[in-house]
């Protein structure tokens, strides 16, 4: 299996994918695109353009109505229901509203993906602290999420998404509720994860911020992919 992965670096492959909702609303229509491993890709467009739909299809929150979608060499159109949890463990998800469990501590929130995957007790402690350290919240591990600021809560969400070291992280408007300085910080954090090999797909409508990052930008409009601009990084790091 391994050589195959090496030969084919495509992590996400949309082949003519459409998503229609019951009632006639179209989420995505005939989208084709490839995202390579270790890429950082921004996804932009007006609200309702299909950004969230695209992310939901990758995380298997929804199934495509038409077309083929491969993520991590899994054919998501055909993946059995019982296999969905295992697919999601390979995809870290970050949400605008954080989606933290408010009756548990920061530590327990971040530990959740490891607990779910059946990781041993000691290993959990080690990896959760490493992830919290990375996002700068190690000193808050015993706090409840509700006592944290919006930016801190988002960082807990990020720590939770990366703690199990998934190859792919999706973020839906991760800076949507944050001021520019905090948004910048969060983006900086994302780039650090990218440097250790994590592929990132970030949906955002903050055009200024995205342009400053100098990464690939996918633009959606009314469910269609209307632009795919690749900005070569100035330092040529790849």
């Amino acid at each position, binding site marked *: 299996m391994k050589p195959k992965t090496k030969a084919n670096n495509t992590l996400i492959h949309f082949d003519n994918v459409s998503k229609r909702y019951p009632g006639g609303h179209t989420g995505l229509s005939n989208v084709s695109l490839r995202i390579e491993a270790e890429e950082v890709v921004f996804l932009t467009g007006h609200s309702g353009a299909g950004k969230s739909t695209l992310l939901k299809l990758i995380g298997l929150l929804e199934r495509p109505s038409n077309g083929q979608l491969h993520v991590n060499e899994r054919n998501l159109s055909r993946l059995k229901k019982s296999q969905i*949890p295992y697919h999601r463990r390979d995809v870290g998800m970050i949400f605008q509203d954080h989606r933290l469990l408010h009756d548990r501590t920061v530590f327990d929130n971040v530990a959740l993906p490891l607990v779910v995957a059946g990781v*041993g007790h000691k290993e959990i402690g080690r990896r959760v602290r490493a992830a919290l350290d990375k996002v700068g919240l190690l000193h808050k591990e015993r706090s409840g999420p509700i006592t944290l600021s919006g930016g801190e809560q988002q960082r807990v969400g990020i720590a939770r998404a990366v703690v199990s070291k998934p190859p792919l992280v999706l973020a839906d408007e991760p800076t949507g509720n944050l001021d520019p300085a905090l948004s910048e910080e969060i983006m900086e954090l994302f780039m650090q994860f990218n440097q250790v090999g994590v592929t990132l797909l970030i949906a955002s409508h903050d055009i200024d911020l995205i342009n400053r990052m100098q990464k690939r930008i996918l633009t959606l409009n009314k469910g269609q992919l209307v632009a795919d601009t690749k900005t070569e990084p100035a330092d040529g790091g790849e």
Partner: protein
Amino acid sequence: MAVSKRLLNAPKIWLQRHAQVALSSLGRMVKNQLATLMTCAVIGIALAMPLGLHVMLGNLQRISGAWDSGASISVFLKQTVSDERAAALAKELRLHQRIEGVELISRKSALEEFQQLSGYADALEALDSNPLPALLIVQPKADYTTAETAQLLVRELKLLPDADIVQLDLQWVRRLQAITVIAQRAVVVLAALLGMAVLLIVGNTIRLEIQNRHAEIEITKLIGATNAFIRRPFLYTGFWYGLFGGVIAWLLVAIAITLLSGPIANLANLYESSFSLSSLNLSTIFSLLFGSSLLGLAGSWLAVGRHLSAIEPS
């Protein structure tokens, strides 16, 4: 190496996880003490009813069993049989393998007793001869005291040429036993109905719990939790509800027995009996707790199966 180490650790991690889930679902229940206590009490009361009736029936059977074994067979001999012949017959019967003992009431002593008790002494004086027959009271051996085997003995005694009327005074004991059998059935039916009630109580409680934790379930599914993982804490919660309900039922019945035992001992005294109310034995307690835990588990399984799959993240 890493793989084999992981495999070796797997059962340990599995156990660890189960223990953790069991404890954390217990902790969650303790946090909402009042609601938990009320649910457990309802389960306990529902289970205490059939349990209490079962204990009462057990006692009733003990009493009627004692009466049954105390039952003796009255053999009225023919008028023509003399007291000497009756005594010889009694002696003969005492050697019978199914007979424990024989009490002889001779014609003479029967007459004396009758004169004493009836007040017809004068009338009896006027008679030429003793109108009363001799009576043998036959006590069957312990192995032959059930209604059926005693009946066999009755048939055998009837064949005696000297016997006139052979009576087994068991009719009412048998009726009581028949009633007991009906009552036993009724307890089984009641237990089944109330067991179903417990199933529904636990199921409904778990359903509410699932609704309360809707957001949590959604998030856990997003993170890649399998259905089994999400199910587990609810199943443990159901198990605990059942177990604690069982413990409450046990306590309720034990208290009821303690409260009743004094007056019943009093009553037994008045009947010159040493009867005392028997309490719950270990095997009953064990089956109660096992059964109630199983009911709790089954109830939560029903709720979880129906409601968890309906929650999908969006």
